[in-house]
């Protein structure tokens, strides 16, 4: 007779995979001493040869920052950050001293190798097809591919610093028009010390022939990351924008406080997708990125459209509310989000849809997946202003719990000041049940396949919004992050 032991808990058979982007690169960099003060701000501005108006902008923001208090209303908890213990500038040293990084043959080969290892080859021969990439390493844009193709149609896509140098009027016209320097604590901080980031301008009537993409890589330790992205879609233009991010595994927490501003003029469409995979800390919650980001778009012209799609799968703490100000009549705002938390991760994320113009519509689809001991909150605001006759909003908030130590919360706020508007809200909470997993396995799918199918099912509406190559990556990422946690 054969005696078998208790059934093996099939779901625990998985080996925990390591965070695959957790390596560090040994790149010589130029940094400043820790601490935040006027001197540092002046240093950064000088380092970048900035015009006076921009230095002034920074100094004003710094003054504003010192009057603001760190926000505490989010459903996240972490020790107080010592803003004097952070380094506000780190730049990979150019191998040839006189050259700022820019042309591909002038980029440090070690940097190219780093991006290649991340799956983002930058050289002419190997670069990704169909996507122009701006690669940002620590605080500095390293290289932007496909410049020629974009120039041919008049699209400007370059690092923020280059834009300040070459297109100062455009930058000055739009900078901080969507996220004012004093908008909030972290936006003010960013406005004072932002290092670099991407700039993009799509001229009137141009459908951008390539997807544009920024890839953010944090490498340096004890250094804050403060990029700024400014994207302007002129009348009747169209662009798909993708954003990816990774960071090394480090024991200490790192602050990432970016600002992203989008402007869509009359009839323009901006689709902005993010797959966020910053290092999330280890299982016990040690290390990881504090991702405190302000992202906002303005549908300035009539019939313009801004769509945010995000897959938030990393960071120790995520504090992020990509929003749309629907100013133009008949403008459209969308927010499609999957936020996954596992282990000790905390996410407080959602959106704001501010309806100003008539017949504006917004759609919010939020999918929160919580596993392990994590906490996942949706926070949303739908505001219909008095002038927004005939405005509509549809909000759907779904939470999926994996295991029973995690938590999910939703904080939806609706403010309606125009009686002719229609606001709908639906919410659900479900669990990945062992019964579902067994059902799929009993049809021949292995555990990974079963999990993948269930995740797909839950996130379907959001994944449909992602460009194909991104959605494949997103599913893989979610699976990896959930391994070992269904049971």
């Amino acid at each position: 007779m054969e005696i078998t032991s208790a059934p093996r808990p099939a779901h625990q058979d998985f080996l925990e995979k390591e965070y695959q982007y957790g390596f560090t690169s040994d790149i010589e960099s130029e940094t400043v001493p820790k601490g935040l003060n006027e001197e540092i701000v002046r240093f950064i501005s000088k380092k970048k040869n900035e015009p006076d108006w921009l230095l002034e902008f920074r100094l004003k923001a710094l003054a504003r920052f010192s009057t603001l208090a760190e926000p505490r209303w989010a459903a996240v908890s972490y020790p107080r950050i010592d803003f004097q213990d952070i380094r506000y500038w780190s730049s990979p040293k150019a191998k040839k001293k006189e050259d700022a990084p820019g042309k591909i043959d002038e980029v440090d080969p070690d940097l190219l190798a780093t991006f290649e290892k991340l799956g983002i080859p930058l050289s002419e021969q190997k670069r990704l097809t169909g996507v122009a990439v701006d690669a940002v390493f620590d605080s500095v844009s390293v290289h932007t591919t496909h410049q020629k193709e974009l120039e041919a149609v008049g699209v400007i896509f370059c690092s923020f610093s280059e834009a300040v140098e070459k297109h100062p009027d455009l930058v000055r016209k739009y900078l901080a028009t969507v996220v004012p320097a004093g908008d909030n604590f972290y936006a003010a901080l960013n406005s004072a010390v932002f290092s670099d980031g991407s700039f993009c301008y799509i001229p009137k009537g141009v459908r951008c022939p390539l997807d544009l993409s920024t890839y953010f890589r944090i490498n340096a330790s004890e250094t804050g990351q403060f990029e700024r992205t400014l994207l302007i879609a002129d009348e009747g233009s169209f662009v798909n924008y993708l954003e990816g991010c990774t960071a090394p595994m480090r024991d200490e927490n790192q602050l990432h406080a970016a600002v992203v501003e989008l402007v869509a003029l009359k009839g323009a469409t901006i689709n902005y997708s993010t797959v966020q995979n910053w290092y999330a800390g280890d299982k016990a919650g040690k290390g990881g990125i504090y991702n405190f980001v302000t992202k906002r778009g303005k549908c300035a012209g009539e019939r313009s459209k801004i769509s945010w799609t995000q897959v938030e799968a990393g960071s120790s703490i995520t504090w992020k509310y990509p929003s749309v100000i629907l100013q133009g009549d008949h403008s459209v705002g969308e927010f499609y989000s999957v936020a996954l938390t596992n282990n000790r991760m905390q996410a407080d994320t959602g959106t704001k849809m501010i309806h100003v113009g008539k017949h504006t519509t917004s759609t919010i689809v939020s999918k929160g997946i919580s596993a392990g001991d994590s906490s996942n909150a949706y926070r949303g605001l739908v505001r219909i202003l008095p002038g927004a006759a005939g405005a509509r909003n549809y909000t759907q908030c779904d939470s999926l719990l994996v295991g029973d130590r995690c938590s999910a919360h939703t904080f939806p706020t609706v403010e309606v000041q125009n009686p002719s508007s229609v606001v709908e809200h639906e919410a659900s909470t479900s669990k990945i049940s062992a019964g579902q997993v067994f059902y799929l396995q009993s049809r021949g799918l292995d555990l990974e396949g079963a999990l993948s199918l269930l995740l797909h099912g839950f996130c379907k509406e959001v994944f449909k919004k992602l460009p194909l190559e991104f959605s494949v990556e997103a599913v893989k990422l979610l699976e990896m992050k959930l391994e070992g946690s269904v049971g």
Partner: protein
Amino acid sequence: MLEIKDLHVETGGVPILKGLDLTVKAGTVHAVMGPNGSGKSTLSKVVAGDPEYAVTQGTVTLEINGRPKNLLDMSPDERARAGVFLGFQYPVEIPGISNTVFLRTAFNAICKAQGIPEMDEAKFDALLAEKMARIGMKSDFAGRAVNVDFSGGEKKRNEILQMAVLGPRLAFLDETDSGLDVDSLRSIGDSITRLKHPGMALVLITHYQRLLDYVKPDVIHVLVQGRIVKSGGPELALEIEKNGYDRILQAAGV
């Protein structure tokens, strides 16, 4: 083909199966009957590998490629890919995933395991459409999320569709006849009969003779309190239908 010996199973420390023996030969149809809560569904789920249940004693062997294999060593998906199928008493809903995607994924997982080339979407769609037509399922069920908002009877029919697509060698059908209207019962009964073949072993779990009118059983077993207390020919089902379990329980001393 299937041999279960002295099977003891518990869940949450409560014993449910207490020394169950069952042998099913290829090409035969067995029916398992028994009072509510006697352990019929448990038996089928243990054969399929549900991790909710702990096997504390006994063996479950299935002949695979002419050799006996210990099923208890295999994960549920390995068993499925080796040809084990369970038609659930309570099929589970999978929101957001269409029947087509679900079945294609399962079908190709089995192809892959058997070293057969996977089927592309167009070919699979055609295969599925044909199977659905044969089973009498409207084509819009292909695009609907698996079992979500299906009626009780539709869920049962969907289980048979899955069996038709996956082509198992050993199938347990747990109360497939419950909740079916008379016409559906006949059509599903006929479908099951068409699906069986000499290389296949079929175990029907049922409370009534009515399904057995359409799918003729070779052997009937009566499962009571975690053990098979009586086995017999097709007439045993008729006797149970007429007299209930009292006499059998008395004779077995339970």
